[in-house]
């Protein structure tokens, strides 16, 4: 539904988006991850036809963003960063205005407004002016605005910034739900957010896409090795002799001995399922196991790895 090819955009001498290529389809929640100033917002602005690219093409829902921009905009719901809204309008008044400019037929307007109020949890504030609302509620009104015409594609720029933890969870669940049938593209620089919500992650840094894949793919890419922590009741010499004999162990570190309990950090070859194999070794030798833990390489490492490398 979104196809981006070799998109480039620069402001003066700064290249904000540099030869970016990716695509996305319905039923996906695509997380746009990157440090501040990486080019996330610029890419979104190009996709929503707010800005145009210097080079490259982008088609959204089959329409070219530059040539058929009105058609593109009909198919998109967009929430810009920090939810800019008309503060002098009432919540209902604003949503009603949106139904008009979105050309929603008169007889469906009420129903659409009701639906987005329910999905975004706006019931408590429908009487208020937008200017009186807290940051969290404004964000929700912004989201409601982007959903009002039931668009097949939703583009959200940092939808959870400024929200409290329970609101963040609500918005994430909302995004997940919407993403079951539609395409949601959202940006964030908060890492747990993507692993919690996205079906696919694009990591962007200095305007370039540095990684593209599911959260699991990205973690395993960065891993290379499996790391297992093990703590056993046994004698140090026999345990170490055993460890040296194991083929899949590439390296081990003795962490400590305490009352006849020894602990090790073991680096094993990827795909060896080291934790399970080690368990069998322990059982065969009749040791008793007090701790066996596989260290997960999380997205944070992937992210830091990829973004640091680029900067260096």
């Amino acid at each position, binding site marked *: 539904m979104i196809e981006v090819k070799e998109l480039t955009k620069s402001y003066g001498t700064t290249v904000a988006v540099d030869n970016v290529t990716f695509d996305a389809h319905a039923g996906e929640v695509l997380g746009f991850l990157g440090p501040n100033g990486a080019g996330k917002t610029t890419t979104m602005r190009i996709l929503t036809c707010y800005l145009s690219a210097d080079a490259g093409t982008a088609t959204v829902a089959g329409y070219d963003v530059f040539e058929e921009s009105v058609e593109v905009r009909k198919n998109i719901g967009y929430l810009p960063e920090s939810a*800019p809204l008309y503060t002098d*309008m009432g919540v209902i008044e604003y949503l009603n205005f949106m139904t008009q*400019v*979105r050309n929603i037929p008169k007889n469906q307007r009420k129903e659409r407004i009701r639906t987005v109020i329910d999905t975004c949890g706006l019931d408590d504030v429908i009487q208020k002016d937008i200017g009186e609302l807290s940051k969290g509620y404004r964000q929700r009104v912004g989201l409601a605005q982007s959903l009002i015409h039931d668009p097949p594609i939703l583009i959200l720029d940092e939808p959870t910034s400024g929200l409290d933890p329970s609101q963040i969870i609500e918005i994430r669940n909302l995004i997940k739900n919407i993403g079951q049938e539609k395409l949601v593209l959202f940006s964030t620089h908060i890492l747990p957010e993507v692993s919690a919500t996205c079906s696919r992650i694009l990591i962007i840094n200095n305007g370039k896409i540095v990684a593209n894949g599911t959260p699991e793919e990205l973690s395993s890419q960065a891993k290379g090795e499996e790391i297992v922590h093990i703590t056993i009741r046994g004698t140090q010499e026999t345990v170490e002799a055993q460890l040296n004999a194991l083929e899949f162990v590439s390296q081990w570190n003795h962490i400590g001995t305490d009352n006849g309990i020894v602990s090790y950090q073991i680096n094993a070859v990827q795909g060896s399922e080291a934790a399970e194999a080690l368990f069998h070794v322990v059982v065969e030798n009749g040791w008793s196991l007090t701790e066996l833990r596989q260290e997960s390489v999380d997205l944070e490492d992937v992210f830091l790895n990829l973004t640091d490398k680029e900067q260096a």
Partner: protein
Amino acid sequence: MTNIAALLKKEFKSYFSSPIAYIFITFFLGISGWLFFRSFFLVNQAEMRGFFGLMPWIFLFFIPAVTMKLWAEEKKLGTVEILMTLPIQDYEVVIGKFLASFGLLVVTVLLSLVLPFSVMYLGNPDGGTLISGYIGLLLMGGAYLAIGLFASTLTENQIVAFILGITACFVLLIIGEDIVLFNAPNWLFPIFSYLGLGAHYSSILRGVLDSRDIIYYLSLIGFFLYLSTLSVESRKWR
């Protein structure tokens, strides 16, 4: 068309949900009424030429204040990003905003009808010049609005938009005034006197609704609305 109507309604309402409209109407009526009656009884003639004659100068300060927020505020708040990603053509937004500000002008001018009615009560003015005067007022006001609107597209700072608007209107006004015309080189004289904002207005004031004057104002409005559209679109130029 429905888009323009929706935008017009929204912008027009927003004038009245903020103090701008009330301040504008009050000050405009207050100042023009005061300036009018100050000389009205001295001259002792049932006519409104004095009132109409002041308008190019009063508009100079009032109209850019009406238009300054139209784009600058949207840019400052960032709401322009939602607005311009709606399935609306840029020119529709420009026209909607222009018509909303024109609506405010019409309301104000309608309220100022108190003046001609009191003149009619006190004497017997020439109805023809009154009507053509009001038509001229709206045409000239429209031109000021279009210029102010264009100034507002250039910046995200309302004060800057206001000053740019005043400056642009002032330049267009003054080149048609005698002070400049008599000092201008001969070859510039016809150009300046044609382009001057006030000259066509004065000829309308004389009670002659000449199509050239109407065309002048309409094309000036069209030109600045076109420039505004270009300016709004310029973010997408490559």
